[in-house]
């Protein structure tokens, strides 16, 4: 499409750099500096989308981020394949560049002919909240019929179908002064704040060019220079200062606690030449000493019948398109206003060659100098007039206007033919970020707006975002907020407006659609209905009508809605309340919020020193906390069941080798170390001899089992504590907590050594034979090195802490070597152990082996509601110690109650049947539902060593019921099992103590 509406010259576009964008399959032409919105207007295309509920044709309302209507699906990199398309982009902020493929949304079969528009005809039914009143019968129809239809009709654009192909980056930054907004106030603030060369200043603006409202301004002067010349000079000055960072295309979207401001920078979407791999967006997480908010203001639409027709735009936006982008949004313009500022639009549009007239709600007497200026400039101004309605369908074709008499009655109607309407109902300061910072808003009657009141954080607002509109005052205000001062002489701005909620009309208000919220199709009558039904708080009105809840978050609609509600209730506006603003200011991609935390960087994968060997040898892994652990080592043709059967058999008959490196390890050192252990664990530690090991059980203060592990006493004042894999961090924190806060008098220090040591478990009758050749300075003989002892020496010439421990019931050693040697020692033991039948085994076999012995796994047999006694471990709970963590709780009534669940074994009647872990246990499977459950299965395995399945279970009063038959749930029903002791394997040959 050519650009019939492009002005021959002017604008802040680069005519030497033409470009093209694909719009609904057609070529749109434009220049560098354009947005998709300005290109659409240049081509004369105003119809840009269909509304949410009624599928009404919609055009472009605004030139900025408050655009509610012109929402497009954009494929940003169609040339690079899939994964670059996303919906709901505002045409007004999509920077034009070659290669963009954009499409309109929410219509079928086409933008021009949309079947959904039938909803517009049904709109008398589809009023606010209609769905609460119907669709209730028949009951089943809600899920199956009504809701699917409603869901399909709603929803605007199509979600992306394939994974996001872009990357995003993240940056934490600190500064002394963060300035949000690079309009006149923000620039002046930055100039002042950075003047000393010391303060670190960040100046961020959501647009791609600094200047704010001055970008639309071709008439104002500052100190005798054109306003944009002042902007250019100021930017150049700031650029030259090393302590200033200017971030264009950067939207401050969230103002969080303690001056933590989050901003998203659009890094590459605007660049046709962006190299592949360049981040799309960057999340800036700024911690600022002070924040200056110079976020500007939003213009209010006027509310009249059919005010949503394409071609009806905000007045300042018309001005922006004419001046900044040098495009004419039509030939015949009517400016409808209650605000002086719109006269600037009229004058500039006329100067640009549009035919212009003005309809002003205000009377002559209420107008300022703008009125005579317009009239002197040859513009017809109808003051004291209202708009009855707009004409036209897919484009406005005229306005019906009429004078309002002194008594409020509507006079004779005139139809003004036009193809563009510029409307202004005044201005609303952008207090979003201020409100997010939890500053208290104050209603200013003069300004008819909420403005920043008391600050909650180190923050100041400057310029239009606090209701300062005159250019000189704005600059002065900005400079002051930046810690300096400035008294510029600037052109006096047309300021002031008459608040007007809904334009007076003589039409039947119940029949017309005058839109408050354009995107969500909320009309004035919807708001009135809500109030009629008792929804009086603005939050109720919002939720009942959905006004202000669209993707623009009510930037253009909130004040009109509030004012209307206040008017109906005849209450002062603040009494109706203002909505609390929540992040984000404008929608932010999930990608930017995630940053690099995707794929490999989603969560760290912790690997042990032996992991590379396991991977090379075909291990199947499983995630355990952040670790990945080898689950089993299948050989050709083996499934897990077969592999585990082989691995467990090997441990019982020859020897298995297992990577236990993930176990948490803490070195506890100090003269009071034994006393500390005594207080943290349930059992006694003072008398444990150096070189001895003991199984330790740890409770929370509430008496429930928290963690367990083997602890070795390496010296009088030194313990090597092990924890569960998942429990390591919390056990460390738990210990450190008691040490620092309850017992600061103890001289004890904790150091995490989980990763200092690789741990290789050798378990099985041949364990000693495998190990012996490689050990020096340790006597492995049974007498010299009995079960549950520890020695230091060398294995394969590497320093070693050698534990004689067993989690399998077999003769066992755990070889702790410095982690960098772990793989080499493992390989050596594995290779030289071949002749002894060494077999690597994984976590699954480990679980089976320990279950065969009835050893618990914290987190599997326990669930945070289980006591030591429940586990049959009361022998580990000292009766002698006067105190330890959790002791007091053990005598609480419910902890000593009869019938608590106790750990037992379960043997299925059919020895081949393996119970489901998590299965429930009942006495009588024939009882009616709800059934009385008496327990559940915690662990269950096929045990090749036992020649049958085995299971551990927690059963009510289980230890008194050994031998009884119970019924256990299966996917299909129930199966029979007998309660047994939780020890299943009778160890033969040289065992742990042999």
């Amino acid at each position, binding site marked *: 499409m050519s650009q019939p509406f492009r002005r021959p010259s002017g604008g802040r576009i680069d005519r030497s750099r033409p470009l093209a964008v694909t719009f609904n399959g057609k070529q749109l032409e434009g220049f560098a500096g354009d947005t998709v919105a300005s290109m659409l207007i240049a081509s004369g295309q105003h119809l840009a989308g269909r509304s949410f509920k009624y599928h009404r044709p919609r055009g472009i309302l605004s030139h900025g981020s408050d655009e509610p209507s012109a929402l497009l699906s954009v494929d940003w990199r169609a040339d690079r394949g899939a994964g670059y398309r996303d919906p709901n982009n505002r045409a007004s902020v999509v920077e034009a560049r070659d290669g963009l493929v954009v499409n309109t949304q929410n219509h079928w079969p086409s933008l021009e002919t949309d079947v959904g528009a039938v909803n517009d005809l049904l709109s008398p039914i589809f009023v606010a909240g209609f769905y609460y009143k119907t669709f209730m019968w028949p009951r089943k129809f809600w899920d199956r019929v009504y809701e699917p239809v409603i869901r399909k009709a709603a929803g605007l654009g199509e979600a992306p179908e394939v994974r996001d192909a872009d990357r995003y980056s993240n940056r*934490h930054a600190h500064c002394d002064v963060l300035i949000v907004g690079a309009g006149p106030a923000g620039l002046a603030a930055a100039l002042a704040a950075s003047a000393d060369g010391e303060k670190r200043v960040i100046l961020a603006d959501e647009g791609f060019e600094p200047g704010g409202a001055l970008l639309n301004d071709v008439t104002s002067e500052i100190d005798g220079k054109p306003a944009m010349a002042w902007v250019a000079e100021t930017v150049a000055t700031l650029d030259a200062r090393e302590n200033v960072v200017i971030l264009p295309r950067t939207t401050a979207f969230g103002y*969080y*606690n*303690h*001056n*933590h401001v989050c901003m998203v920078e659009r890094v590459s979407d605007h660049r046709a030449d962006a190299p592949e791999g360049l981040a799309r967006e960057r999340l800036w*997480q700024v*911690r*600022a*000493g*002070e924040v200056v908010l110079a976020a500007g203001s939003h213009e209010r639409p006027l509310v009249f019948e059919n005010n949503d027709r394409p071609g009806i735009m905000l007045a300042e936006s018309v001005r922006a398109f004419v001046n900044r982008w040098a495009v004419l949004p039509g030939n015949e313009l009517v400016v409808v206003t209650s605000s002086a500022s719109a006269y600037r639009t009229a004058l500039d549009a006329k100067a640009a060659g549009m035919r212009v007239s003005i309809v002003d709600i205000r009377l002559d007497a209420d107008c300022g100098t703008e009125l005579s200026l317009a009239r002197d400039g040859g513009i017809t101004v109808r003051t004291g007039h209202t708009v009855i309605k707009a004409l036209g369908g897919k484009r406005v074709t005229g306005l019906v206007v009429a004078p309002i008499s002194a008594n409020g009655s509507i006079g004779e109607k005139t139809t003004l033919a036009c193809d563009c309407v510029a409307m202004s109902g005044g201005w609303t300061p952008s207090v979003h970020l201020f409100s997010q910072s*939890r500053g208290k808003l104050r209603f200013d009657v003069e300004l008819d707006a909420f403005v920043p009141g008391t*600050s*909650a*954080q*180190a*923050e100041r607002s400057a310029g239009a975002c606090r209701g300062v509109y005159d250019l000189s005052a704005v600059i002065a205000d900005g400079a002051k907020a930046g810690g300096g001062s400035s008294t510029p002489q600037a052109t006096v701005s047309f300021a002031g407006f008459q608040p007007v909620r809904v334009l007076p009309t003589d039409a039947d208000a119940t029949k017309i659609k005058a839109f408050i919220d354009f995107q969500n199709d909320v009309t004035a009558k919807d708001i009135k209905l809500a109030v009629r039904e008792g929804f009086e708080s603005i939050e109720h009105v919002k939720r009942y009508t959905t006004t202000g809840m669209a993707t623009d978050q009510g930037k253009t609609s909130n004040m009109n809605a509030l004012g209307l509600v206040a008017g109906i209730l005849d209450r002062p506006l603040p009494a109706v309340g203002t909505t609390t603003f929540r992040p984000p200011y404008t929608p932010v991609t999930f990608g930017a919020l995630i940053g690099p935390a995707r794929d490999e960087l989603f969560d760290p994968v912790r690997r042990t020193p032996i992991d590379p060997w396991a991977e090379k040898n075909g291990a199947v892994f499983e995630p355990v906390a952040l670790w990945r652990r080898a689950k089993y080592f299948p050989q050709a043709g083996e499934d897990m069941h077969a592999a585990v059967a082989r691995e467990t058999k090997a441990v019982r008959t020859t020897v298995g080798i297992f990577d236990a490196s993930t176990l948490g390890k803490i070195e506890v050192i100090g003269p009071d170390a034994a006393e500390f252990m005594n207080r943290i664990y349930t059992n006694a530690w003072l008398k444990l001899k150096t070189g001895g090991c003991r199984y330790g059980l740890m409770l929370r*203060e*509430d008496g429930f089992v928290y963690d367990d592990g083997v602890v070795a006493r390496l010296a009088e004042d030194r313990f090597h504590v092990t924890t569960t894999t998942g429990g390591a961090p919390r056990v460390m*924190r738990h210990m*450190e*907590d008691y040490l*620092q*806060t*309850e017992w*600061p008098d103890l001289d004890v220090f904790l150091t995490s050594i989980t990763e200092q040591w690789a741990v290789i478990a050798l378990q099985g009758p041949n364990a000693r034979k495998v190990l012996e050749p490689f050990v020096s300075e340790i006597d492995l003989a049974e007498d010299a090195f009995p079960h549950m002892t520890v020695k230091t020496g060398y294995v394969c010439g590497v320093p070693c802490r050698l534990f004689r421990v067993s989690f399998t019931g077999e003769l066992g050693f755990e070889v702790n070597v410095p982690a960098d040697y772990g793989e080499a020692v493992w390989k050596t033991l594995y290779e030289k152990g071949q002749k002894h039948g060494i077999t690597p085994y994984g976590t699954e076999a480990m679980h089976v082996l320990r279950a065969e012995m009835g050893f618990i796994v914290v987190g599997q047999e326990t669930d945070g509601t289980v006591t030591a006694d429940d586990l049959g471990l009361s022998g580990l709970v000292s009766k002698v110690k*006067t*105190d330890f963590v959790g*002791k*007091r*709780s053990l*005598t*609480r*009534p419910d902890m000593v109650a009869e019938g608590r669940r106790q750990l037992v074994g379960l043997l299925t009647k059919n020895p081949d049947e393996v119970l489901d872990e998590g299965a429930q246990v009942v006495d009588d499977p024939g009882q009616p539902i709800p059934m009385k459950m008496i327990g559940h299965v915690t662990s269950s395995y096929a045990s090749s060593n036992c020649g049958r399945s085995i299971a551990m279970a927690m059963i009510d009063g289980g230890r008194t019921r050994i031998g009884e038959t119970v019924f256990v749930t299966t996917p299909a029903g129930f199966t029979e099992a007998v309660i047994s002791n939780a020890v299943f394997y009778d160890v033969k040959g040289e065992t742990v103590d042999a």
Partner: protein
Amino acid sequence: MLLIDCPYCGKRPEVEFHCGGEAHIARPEMPTAVEDADWGSFLYYRTNPKGLHAERWLHGHGCGRWFNALRDTVSDAFVATYEMGKPRPDRDEATASSPSNA
């Protein structure tokens, strides 16, 4: 994300810290001498105030120290941080609302 003034390290971001709940709940000297109800109180009952709250923080991803803080639970502004074992500072609620927490 809060900015927390660690008594040892100065102001650091919240993600380095772990909150340990209400402070100054002393573990009884001899827990076994405490009644069930009082023990239940010790374990579970909390002040949960809307206003100044004395609470424990661990600078786990920092200096590794536990310390106490006084924070306004309405504004989330910290009024004071202080070492373990020191008494709760005598501050009134008004202090908390001043925008000095940057």
